C-alpha cells in the first residue's frame, strides 16, 4: 500500500475535522478531505464515464461547502444587539464564553493536546487495521481512505456532535461522503447517473437543512452550541445564579483573580449566616462554622 497525496489530504482533512475548534477551520478541513476524495475517485475509476462521477462529486462539494461556509461566515460576523428578539442572557452568555474564559493552565492545554493527538493516532492505526481485517472491495488505498473518512466522521460526531452544530453537520456530511466513495470504488459496477444524482441530492439537501438549523440557532440563542437548545427544550432557564465554590483555597481566599464580563475583578464576599428576626433563634451549629466561605457567583 502506498500513501499518495490524495490519501494524505484525506488524513489531514479528517484530523482537522476532529481537532480544530473553529467552525471555519472545520469547513476548510472538510474541503481538504473532499479534495482528497475526488482525487481518490479519479485515481481508481478507469471505466468510461469516470469523468461524470468526478464532475458530480466536485459540484456537490462546491455546493455543500459553499452553502455551509457562507452560512457560518455570515453568522460569524453578527454582533450582539444586531439580532432582535434574543434574550439578554443568551448574548451575555455568548460574550462570557468567548471573551471571559479564564486562561487555561499550561498543564490543561498540554493534556488536551495529548488526548487529541492520541485519539487521532488511534484513529489512524484503526483505519489501517480495519482495511486489513475487512477488505470491503476496491484497492487497498481506496479502502484505507474509506475507513479514515468514516473514522473521522464518527470521532467528530461522538466527541463534538452533541455540542457543536457545525461539527454535527459536517460529521453527517462526511459519513455520506464515505458512502459515496465506497459506491464509486467498491461497487460491483460503476454507479449509474441515477445513483450519483441521488447521492448528490441527499448531501446537498442535508447541507441546506443543517445550514438553516445554524441560522435558527443563531437567531434564537446567539450561539451555534446545542447546549442552549437542549436547555430550552427542557424548559431550563439560561444562565441562572447559584452558589458555587470557585477556585477557593483553604481559608477562603481566591486562588486566582476572577474577572467579570465587564472587566472588573470580582470582590470576595463572604456570605453572612442568615439571621432570623426572632430573638430566640438558636445559634448555628458548630459544624457550619468549619465550612469554608462560599462565594456567590453567576453560573453559566
Amino acid at each position: 500500500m502506498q500513501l499518495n497525496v490524495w490519501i494524505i489530504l484525506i488524513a489531514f482533512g479528517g484530523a482537522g475535522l476532529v481537532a480544530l475548534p473553529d467552525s471555519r477551520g472545520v469547513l476548510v478541513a472538510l474541503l481538504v478531505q473532499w479534495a482528497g476524495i475526488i482525487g481518490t475517485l479519479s485515481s481508481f475509476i478507469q471505466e468510461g464515464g469516470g469523468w461524470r462521477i468526478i464532475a458530480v462529486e466536485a459540484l456537490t462539494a462546491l455546493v455543500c461547502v459553499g452553502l455551509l461556509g457562507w452560512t457560518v461566515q455570515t453568522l460569524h460576523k453578527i454582533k450582539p444587539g444586531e439580532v432582535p428578539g434574543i434574550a439578554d442572557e443568551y448574548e451575555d452568555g455568548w460574550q462570557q464564553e468567548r471573551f471571559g474564559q479564564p486562561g487555561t493552565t499550561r498543564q490543561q492545554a498540554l493534556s488536551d493536546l495529548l488526548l487529541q493527538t492520541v485519539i487521532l493516532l488511534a484513529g489512524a492505526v484503526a483505519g489501517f487495521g480495519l482495511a486489513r481485517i475487512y477488505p470491503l472491495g476496491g484497492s487497498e488505498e481506496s479502502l484505507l481512505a474509506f475507513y479514515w473518512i468514516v473514522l473521522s466522521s464518527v470521532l467528530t460526531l461522538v466527541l463534538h456532535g452533541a455540542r457543536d452544530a457545525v461539527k454535527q453537520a459536517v460529521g453527517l456530511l462526511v459519513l455520506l461522503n464515505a458512502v459515496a466513495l465506497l459506491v464509486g470504488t467498491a461497487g460491483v459496477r460503476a454507479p449509474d447517473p441515477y445513483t450519483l444524482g441521488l447521492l448528490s441530492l441527499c448531501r446537498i439537501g442535508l447541507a441546506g437543512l443543517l445550514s438553516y438549523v445554524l441560522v435558527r440557532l443563531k437567531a434564537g440563542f446567539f450561539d451555534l452550541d446545542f447546549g442552549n437548545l437542549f436547555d430550552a427544550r427542557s424548559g431550563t432557564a439560561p444562565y441562572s445564579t447559584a452558589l458555587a465554590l470557585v477556585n477557593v483555597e483553604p481559608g477562603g481566599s481566591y486562588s486566582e483573580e476572577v474577572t467579570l464580563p465587564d472587566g472588573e475583578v470580582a470582590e470576595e464576599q463572604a456570605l453572612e449566616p442568615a439571621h432570623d428576626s426572632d430573638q430566640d433563634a438558636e445559634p448555628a451549629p458548630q459544624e457550619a462554622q468549619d465550612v469554608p466561605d462560599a462565594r456567590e457567583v453567576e453560573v453559566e
Partner: protein
Amino acid sequence: MSSTWLPAGAPLVAALVACVLWFVSSRRGSKDPLRELLQVVALAVSALGLVAPLFLAWAIPAARGGVLPAHDGVLLCVQAALISALFLQWSAQSSLGARLRIMLACLLTSAFLVLALGTNDRTHISLLLLAAALAACGPVLVTPPLGSDDADQETSSARSITGGVKHISSATLGTCLLVIGALLVARYAVNLENSGLQQLGAGLVVVGLVARAGVWPFAPASSDLLAAAAGPAVLVMGAVTPSVIAAGIVILDLQGGASPLRGYSLAWLPAIGVLLAGLRALGAGADRHAISAQSGLPIPRSFSSPDLFAATIALQAGWAMFGVLSGSTEGVGGALLLAANTAIAVPLLVAATGSSKPALAVAAASLLGLPPTGGFVGTLLVARSAAAVG
C-alpha cells in the same frame, strides 16, 4: 424503473403548480379575496398531486406504483397519511409561508416514497428513503425564528428543532448502514471465501433497516416531533416509517427466489426494540416525587403524551420489523398490514390529541394491536410467525 416516473412525477408537477400559485398569491394584498382563493386552489392542487399516483397506477397498469402488489395497498395508506398531514397542518397554520412549506414537504415526500417503493435496487431505495426523510423534516427546520419572549413557545420551537435534527441524524446513519451493507451483499453474494463479509453486509442491512423503521432505541426524535410539530410527525411516522417497512421486504429480497439475505435472522433485534419501547412507555411519567408548593401534598402522577405515543408507534414498528425479518409469508403479510395500519393510525392519533378522546382511544388501540381495530390482524399474523420460528 421508468414506469414509476409517471406516478412520481405527478406530485412534483403539483408542487411546481403550487409554488406558482403561492407566488401569485403573495403578490396580492392581505385583504384581497383572490389571495385566499389562490391558496385554496393551491391546496386542492396539492391534494390532487397526492392522489394522482394512485389513480395513475389504477388507470395505467404500466405505471403501477409499487414493485409488489401489496405495496400498492401500503402506498394508498401512505398517500392518505400525507393528505391528512397536509390538511392538518393547513388548518393549524395561517401564514402563507407555513402553508407552502407543508405543501412542498408532502408532495416531495410523496414523490420520493413512490420512487422508493417502485424500484428493486437496494441503493436507490435507501437513498430515496433518506431523501423522503429530509423532505419530511423540511417544515420543522426551514421555519423563520419566532423571536418570542414566551417561554412555552421557545420550548416548543426548541423541541421541533431538536426533533428534526435527531431524525435527520438517525436517518443518515441508518442509510449509510443500509448502503454499505447492500454493497457488501451484492459484491460477496456468491463468494464462499468471504462468507464473513457477506454476513457482515447482511447484518448492516438489517441494522440499517431497523434504524430507519424507527424501532426503539432508534426513534429519538419521535416524542419531540409529536409534541411540537404535528404535521411533520405525521409525515415521518405516518408516511416514511410504513414505507420503510414495505421497502424492507424488497431490500431483504423476501418476495421470492434465492437471496443471501433470506434465512439470515436478526429478528431478535426488533424484539428487543419492542421490549425497550414498553419500558420507555412505563418511564414516560412525571416526577413521582413532585410535591405541590401550595398544599405540600404529592402531585398525582401524569404521563407525557408525546412520549407515550412515540413509544406506542415504535412498538408497532418493532412488531412489523420482526415480521419482515422472520422471513415467513405470515410474518411478511402481518408486517405489511401493520405498516398500512400505522399509516392510518398515526394521523388519527395526532389529529385526535386534545380534541376527541374516543378517536384517540381507537388510534391507540390500533397501534397496540387490540381487537377489533386494524392493527389486530397484523399483530396476530406476526405473533403466529414468531411462534412458528420459535
